């Protein structure tokens, strides 16, 4: 069986720094996978390599049996990989609805021609109705319909997190990558977020999340990948990871 995401011998150098070195990993369809590692382990770089933000120095990435290394981020996104960002990137001067609609229109493009003449024929009207429908559904999924008309910049931090997830969901992705979704959230908010991610996963979405919050990762992920200094040092169930010697060494250090 082929994996949904196949990362083979992937590496990336920034000048003299090996940010990611020879990482091989996979994600199966329907899995909820965690990616953890100490600061500077290369987690975000690995995400950027998958989503096309950073070109690879070596190796290949394949998604649904198709090589995606070398594609631009928007091409990767249209194949069904959707992501959020570590440092929260919403479109501040657009309304909540308009923010989320960008995800929908990204997956279901409306071109200049469609914008100009779409109102005149049925397929054009269907297209914008479908974009509106997907946008509204994504807002319902994260519970933000009551602030749909608000400017994104006016939302409190916690809601902006969900806005970013809604925008990613509006693309109707096959694979969702969440980069530190719990950063900056308090315990209650983190618990709610964990339940929300579990619910998304329960609906059949394949999810990968990078997270510092161990309880979150250990609590909901089926499998965990551990990176340290750009290399994969472990790959297993939460229970196996908790007792893995290499992981303990990377996180806690070890006496010489």
């Amino acid at each position: 069986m082929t994996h949904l995401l196949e990362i083979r011998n992937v590496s990336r150098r920034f000048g003299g720094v090996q940010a990611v070195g020879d990482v091989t990993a996979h994600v199966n369809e329907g899995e909820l996978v965690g990616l953890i590692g100490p600061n500077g382990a290369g987690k975000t770089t690995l995400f950027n390599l998958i989503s096309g933000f950073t070109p690879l120095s070596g190796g290949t990435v394949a998604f649904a049996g198709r090589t995606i290394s070398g594609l631009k981020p928007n091409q990767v996104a249209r194949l069904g990989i959707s992501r959020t960002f570590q440092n929260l990137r919403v479109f501040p001067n657009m309304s909540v609805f308009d923010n989320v609609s960008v995800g929908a229109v990204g997956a279901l493009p409306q071109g200049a021609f469609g914008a100009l003449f779409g109102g005149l024929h049925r397929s054009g009207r269907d297209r914008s109705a479908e974009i509106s429908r997907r946008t509204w559904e994504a807002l319902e999924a994260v519970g933000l319909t009551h602030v749909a008309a608000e400017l994104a910049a006016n939302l409190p931090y916690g809601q902006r997190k969900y806005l970013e997830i809604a925008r990613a969901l509006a693309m109707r992705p096959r694979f969702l990558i969440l980069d530190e979704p719990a950063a900056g959230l308090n315990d209650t908010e983190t618990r709610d977020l964990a339940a929300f991610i579990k619910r998304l996963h329960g609906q059949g979405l394949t999810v990968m999340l990078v997270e510092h919050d161990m309880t979150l990762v250990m609590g909901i992920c089926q499998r965990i990948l551990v990176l340290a200094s750009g290399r994969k040092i472990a790959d297993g169930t939460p229970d196996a990871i908790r007792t893995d010697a290499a992981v303990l060494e990377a996180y806690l250090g070890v006496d010489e």
Partner: protein
Amino acid sequence: MNAFENAAPADGLTRRRGLLVPALILLLVFAALPALLAGFDKGYFYQIANLALIFVLLSASMHLVTGVAGLLHLGHAAFYGVGAYTAALLTSKLGLGFTVTLPLSGLVAALVAFLVALPTMRLVSIYFAVATLAIGQMLYLVMLNWVDFTKGPNGVIVSKGFELFGFSLSGRLGAYYTVAAVVTLSVIAIGRLSHSYYGNALRSIREDDQCADAMGVSTVRLKMEAFTLSAFFAGIAGSLWAHMTGYISPGDFKFSESILILAMVVVGGLGSLPGAVIGALLLILLPEGLRALGDFRNIMVGLVMFLSILLLPKGLLGEVSALRLVRRQLGAAWRNTGPANGKGEGIGWR
């Protein structure tokens, strides 16, 4: 109306219609104003009305690239010039009329924009602005110095006025109606481009282009499109100008004109199409209205611009208010009957 027309796209969203405001605007532009102009029957007033309309189109077209897509464009007047010279040269060298030169002016300006955009579209922010400044200067210098082709600083006489398929429209009122019709149709087209999900994709590039890229938006392609389309409409404005004045010269399209158009867009409100229209009307009509003040009027115009930016940094009609206005009054949006508000405020785009 088919079944789909009446169906909601999702719970909480239904269609809405608004026709009153557009009807009033059309009545003003095509009935009240021409009636007034005919009543006064002064060539000068017709000139001002046509000039204001042409600058409305220039400002609206720059709104698309600078206000919506967020690309600071410092060479817009050059594409206006390319359109005007296309019309003028096609008329003087080949004897073609307005019916043919109008679309060709737009297309030639768009083609030139497309070619210069190819290498510049990967530039960002200030670097893109400087590149457009250079492009504007280059095109201006071609108009000025390629004497054999453009007649250089002597300018070109455009011997033909407005006509439609040979039917002459060159009387004062005919010219006004031609300019008004072309500008209105173009502004409606620009409205469709900026008040749609396509427009939202352009706005997302302005807000955060990397993030837009991750959402599946082809940023480079969309920037090219916005730049090229805006040049197309500037070219259309150029053709109107050439046939309206009957004489063009490079001085009409120099850097200061680009800055004037930019000022219209900024004073009106970046990202706001109604704002761009208001900004153009203000900065054309104000100096004319203040003619009695003599040279002092330029200081007044500067003062108005300065104060409007100081007091209303988001513009006379900022983007947020403008989008709300468009959604409420022009029927461009869905009516939100969901939990957001029971008042039925417009949301999204139809």
